[in-house]
C-alpha cells in the first residue's frame, strides 16, 4: 500500500431515485477503492445497487428521477461528481471507458459499428476522420473481430451478440483508458460466449495496464477476472475482500449464502442452495442491518442499528458478528466467530463447503 491516491476512490456514495411510490434509496453510503491495474468486482442480486453505483462513477444517473445525494467519486484524486459538463466529457470515453449489459441495445442501430468505435477517438483526440476510422478498425481487430475493415462498415444488427459486445469493448478501450467499467457485460450472452468475453477483458486488462470495475450478479464471473470483490446488498456494501478469500472464508452471512448458491458442475444435487426471502424494496428498507430479515445468524442487535464496516482479514465487513475493535489490544480477534460457525449458523453443511471450494474458480 502506498500513499498515492488510488485510481478510483468511491466514498460514502448515496444515490436516491424519486418515484411516485416514494424515494428509493438505491445506493446508501457505499465506499470502495480500486487501485492501478486492479480488477475489482461488484457483486450482488438484482436491485442491490451495483449498476447505479457503476453509473454514478461516470455521473450517468438520469436526473430526475435519480439524484446523487451524498458522497464522492474521486478519479486520480479529482471529484467526478462535482465536474461540469465539458470536464465530464473529457473523462468519459477517454480516461474511463464503459461497457453495458445488453450490447444490442447499447449500440446505436443507425450508425455503422466503425463509426461508433471511431467516435470516442474523434472526440478526444486531434485526429482526422480517416485516422479515427483506422483506429476503430485496429481496435476491432484487437478484440478479435475477423475481417475488421469490412465489418466496420456494417451495422450493429448484422453482428451477433458476442461480436456486438466485442465492438462495445473496442469502443470503450479506443482511447486506452486507465479504467474500464463493465456493467454485467456477459449477462445477456450465451455461456460459451461469456467465457470468451471474460477472457478478452482479462487479457486486455493485463496488456493495457488497465483497472477494471466488473459488475455482475454472478460470483463465478468475478473469479475469472477480479482481484478483489465487493458484495452489495440492498444499496449497502456488505463485505469487501480479496477474491480468493471470498470463496474460502466469506465473513458476511450474505456472502456465505451467495457463495453457497453457486451450483457445482461436478456434483449432482437435487436442489440448489438459495437464500430464503427476497431483497427488500429500496423505498422502505428494513431497520438496522438490511439483511437481518433474511439472515439465519440474526441477533438481537441486528434490527436496531446498521453495523459499521470493520477491517477483517485483508478486507472489510459490515455485520454485527464482527464488532468494532475496542481499544484493548487483542480483544477484537477473540470475539470473531470461526468461519465454520457462520456455515453452521447459515445452515450450510460440509457438503456445501466442499462444493464451495470445488466450484470456485471453475
Amino acid at each position, binding site marked *: 500500500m502506498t500513499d498515492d491516491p488510488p485510481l478510483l476512490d468511491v466514498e460514502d456514495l448515496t444515490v436516491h431515485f424519486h418515484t411516485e411510490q416514494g424515494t428509493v434509496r438505491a445506493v446508501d453510503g457505499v465506499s470502495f477503492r480500486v487501485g492501478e491495474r486492479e480488477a475489482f468486482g461488484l457483486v450482488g442480486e438484482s436491485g442491490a445497487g451495483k449498476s447505479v453505483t457503476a453509473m454514478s462513477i*461516470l455521473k*450517468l444517473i438520469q436526473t*430526475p428521477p435519480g439524484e446523487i445525494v451524498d458522497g464522492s467519486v474521486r478519479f486520480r484524486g479529482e471529484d467526478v461528481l462535482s465536474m461540469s*459538463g*465539458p470536464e*465530464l*466529457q*473529457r*473523462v*468519459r*470515453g*477517454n480516461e474511463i*471507458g*464503459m461497457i*453495458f449489459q*445488453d450490447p444490442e*441495445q*447499447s*449500440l*446505436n*442501430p*443507425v*450508425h455503422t459499428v466503425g463509426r461508433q468505435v471511431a*467516435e*470516442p477517438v474523434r*472526440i*478526444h483526440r486531434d485526429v482526422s476522420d480517416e485516422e479515427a476510422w483506422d483506429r476503430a478498425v485496429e481496435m476491432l481487430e484487437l478484440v478479435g473481430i475477423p475481417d475488421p475493415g469490412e465489418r466496420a462498415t456494417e*451495422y450493429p*444488427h448484422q453482428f451477433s451478440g458476442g461480436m456486438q459486445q466485442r465492438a*462495445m469493448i473496442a*469502443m*470503450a478501450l479506443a482511447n486506452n483508458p486507465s479504467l474500464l467499467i463493465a456493467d454485467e457485460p456477459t449477462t445477456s450472452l450465451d455461456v460459451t460466449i461469456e467465457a470468451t468475453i471474460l477472457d478478452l477483458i482479462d487479457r486486455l486488462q493485463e496488456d493495457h495496464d488497465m483497472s477494471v470495475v466488473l459488475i455482475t450478479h454472478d460470483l463465478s464471473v468475478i473469479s475469472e477476472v477480479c482481484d478483489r470483490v465487493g458484495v452489495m446488498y440492498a444499496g449497502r456494501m456488505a463485505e469487501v475482500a480479496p477474491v480468493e478469500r471470498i470463496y474460502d472464508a466469506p465473513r458476511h452471512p450474505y456472502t456465505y449464502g451467495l457463495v453457497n448458491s453457486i451450483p457445482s458442475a461436478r456434483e449432482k444435487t437435487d436442489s440448489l442452495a438459495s437464500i430464503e426471502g427476497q431483497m427488500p424494496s429500496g423505498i422502505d428498507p428494513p431497520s438496522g442491518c438490511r439483511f437481518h430479515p433474511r439472515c439465519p445468524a440474526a441477533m438481537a442487535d441486528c434490527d436496531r442499528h446498521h453495523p459499521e464496516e470493520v477491517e477483517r482479514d485483508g478486507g472489510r465487513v459490515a455485520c454485527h458478528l464482527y464488532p468494532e475493535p475496542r481499544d484493548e489490544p487483542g480483544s477484537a480477534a477473540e470475539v470473531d466467530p470461526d468461519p465454520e460457525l457462520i456455515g453452521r449458523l447459515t445452515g450450510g453443511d460440509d457438503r456445501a463447503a466442499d462444493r464451495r471450494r470445488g466450484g470456485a474458480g471453475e
Partner: protein
Amino acid sequence: MGLARYVLRRLLLLVPVVIGATLLIFLMLHLAPGDPARLILGQRRASEETIRNIRQIFHLNEPLWKQYLLWLWDALHGDLGRSFTFRRPVTEMIVERYPITLQLALSGWLISMAVGIPAGIVSAVKQYTKVDYVTTIVALSGVSMPVFWQGIMLILLFSYFLGWFPSSGFAVDGTVFDRLHHLTLPAIALGTSITALTVRLTRSAMLDVLNQDYIRTARSKGVSEREIITGHALQNAFLPILTVLGMQLGLLLAGSVLTETVFGIGGLGRLLIRAVHKFDYPTVQGLTLVIVTVMVFMNLLVDVLYTFINPKIRYD
C-alpha cells in the same frame, strides 16, 4: 437492386388499389337514389327525347360494369369525362386546380415541419420544464382550434385590421411575390392545424429514443449533449415522424376543404365538395383517382425513405 425491384412491385400494387377505390366510389354514386340524366339536366324541364339522348351520350343505358369499364378505359387515356355541373372536362379542371392545392399543401406542410420538429425536440429535451409545458399548451390549443375559426381570426387580424395580407383568393397567374402574399395566411392556418400533431409526435419519439441504452452509451463516450440530440437521437426518432409527415402531406394533397373555403381558394378540396353536393360523379370519380394515386405514391416514397433512415429496413 433490391430497392428498385421493391419499388416496381409496389407500383404494380397501385393497379388493384386504384381499381378498388374507384370501383367503390363508382358503386356508391350509382347505387344512390336519383336519375343521373335528370341531375345532368338540372332544373330545366326536358322532353323524354332529350333525356334519352343524354342517357345515350353518357352511356347511362349500359349495364353498370360496362359503364365502369368505359370510364376506366377513358381514364387510362387521360380522359376523366365531362363534369355535369361545370360542363368542362374533368381532367382540365384537375390540371388547372392541382398546382393551387399543391402550393397550399406544401407550404402548410413545410410550416408544420419547420415549427413542429424543433418544438418537439426542445420539448422532449427539456421535459417537465416551463418550455415543455408552454409548448404542450400551445400545441394542444393548436389541435383544439378548428382550422376555419383559426382562418377567420387570421383574416380578421392580418387582413381586416392590419391589412398586411389579402383576405381571400389566390394569384394563380401572379408573380412569385403575389402568390406568396396570397398564400401566407392560408398556409399558416393549414400549417398550424397539423403542426400540433407534429410537435407531440416528435416529442414522444424523441423521449422514447433519449431513454434508449445507446444514448447512455454515447454519453459514456463523452459525446456532448448537443451532439447526442443531433447525431444520435434524431435519426432514430425520425422513423415515426416520417410516417406521419408522409400521411399528412398525402392528406393535404387531397385538398383542404375548410382552408380553401375560408380563404376562397379554388383548390381540389372545394371542387370535390361541390361535386359531391351536385352528384357530379365524373368529377368525384376523377378526383378520387387522383387522390388515391397521390396517397399511394406518398406511402411508397415514405417506405423508400425508411431505408435511408434505418439500415435495419431492407427490401430485398
